[in-house]
């Protein structure tokens, strides 16, 4: 049994909220650099170069990369040999978000009720996903999610007969419908299988996988590569103003499913695909 003080969780989450909103993770930073060099359309290249300038200014002047500093989505992978001390873990996570957003000059974008819509003024509550794993460490992923792209995300409850072609069509449909609204170049997170909620969660988690890493399942890796090519052939381009860079990566996660179903979730993220990861 290992003791972990929840105050450490708070402190780390606070720092990670600020870090993720000002600095892209290395994988995204590299992908954006390459895109600005590889884009074929002149206007597309100009936009990608502006996004390079934007990242530089964000880091140097500590101005958030995007004004939509997101709703804080937090994945907690907790070793089953960990015992938390010092108070409620959930409150500690939210306290980290509160401190990060208030002290880090991040935008407060959360309303306390979806219909009454009063701003909570500290960006809480976070959306927290807990997962129990073996071991005695705690892995925290902070992924602030902007809603321009979140709004363009979809769940498709396909039939088994739709097969892999149905899956491809669903993903391409979501990307084409998103077009300029999702701030391309985008990252496309996909969940295939499971149940209604499981596939959506897999799609969200797929966005936190580094964009330069593929699925370990050979056919899924091929699917990721094929879809990335197809998406980049749509011509949507940077900012939706035409070009060869519409997506930086397609990350797909799969899970066993029911004999009657083929759920597919497509979670779209803009080029500000933020994820900070730390292990305690």
């Amino acid at each position: 049994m290992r003791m972990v003080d929840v105050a450490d969780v708070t402190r780390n989450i606070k720092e990670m909220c600020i870090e993720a909103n000002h600095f892209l993770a290395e994988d995204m930073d590299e992908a954006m650099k390459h895109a600005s060099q590889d884009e074929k359309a002149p206007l597309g290249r100009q936009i990608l170069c502006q996004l390079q300038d934007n990242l530089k200014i964000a880091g140097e002047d500590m101005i958030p990369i995007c004004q939509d500093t997101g709703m804080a989505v937090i994945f907690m992978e907790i070793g089953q040999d960990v015992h938390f001390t010092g108070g409620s873990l959930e409150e500690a996570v939210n306290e980290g978000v509160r401190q990060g957003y208030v002290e880090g000059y991040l935008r407060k974008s959360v309303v306390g009720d979806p219909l009454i819509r009063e701003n909570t003024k500290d960006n809480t509550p976070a959306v927290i996903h807990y997962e129990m794993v073996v071991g005695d460490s705690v892995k925290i992923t902070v992924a602030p999610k902007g809603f321009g792209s979140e709004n363009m995300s979809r769940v498709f409850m396909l039939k088994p007969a739709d097969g892999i072609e149905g899956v491809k069509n669903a993903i391409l449909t979501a990307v084409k419908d998103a077009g300029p609204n999702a701030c391309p170049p985008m990252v496309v997170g996909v969940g295939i299988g499971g149940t209604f909620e499981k596939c959506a969660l897999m799609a969200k988690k797929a966005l936190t996988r580094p964009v330069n890493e593929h699925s370990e399942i050979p056919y899924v890796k091929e699917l990721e590569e094929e879809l990335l090519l197809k998406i980049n052939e749509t011509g949507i381009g940077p900012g939706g103003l035409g070009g060869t860079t519409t997506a930086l990566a397609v990350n797909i996660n799969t899970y066993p499913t029911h004999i009657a179903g083929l759920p597919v979730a497509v979670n779209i993220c803009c080029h500000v695909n933020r994820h900070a990861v730390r292990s305690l």
Partner: protein
Amino acid sequence: MERHIQAPINKEEAAALRAGDYVYISGTIYTARDAAHKRMYETLAHGGALPLEMENNVIYYMGPSPAREGRPIGSAGPTTASRMDKYAPDLLDLGLIGMIGKGKRSQAVKEAIVRNGAVYFAAVGGAGALLSKSITKSEVIAYDDLGTEAIRKLEVKDFPVIVVIDSEGTDLYETVMAE
């Protein structure tokens, strides 16, 4: 082509802009996004007066992050314009000449743009740090209680945008996809 224009924008200047033009805006523009639009819409429905004149003005669909000390504003990029589609035609009919946002607009908005000789600009989505450098002054003029969604009066200098829908209804997003 590349153009430099002054906001507020008069009808003749707006009519000269073409989809695809790269435009640098200087002068005064106003911010409003979801909650401010809803409130303005309800104000109009009850016969009330809007907190800003629409005639020849430009609305930027934007809610900034908080400014650090000594700076006029925080990160300040565009939000998705389609969420304002329900409200935009009424404001265009009152004389609103320009909107800055990102993403597609509805047919009703396009028709109101053509009917009124207005223009829809896109700023680069997700470039909030860069775009904040073109904003020299920011002042909340209405709906302070809405926080980031309050209406702000901005002074801008060479604020970079692209004409997406011009006063003749040509839509750059559609023309690039057709190509």
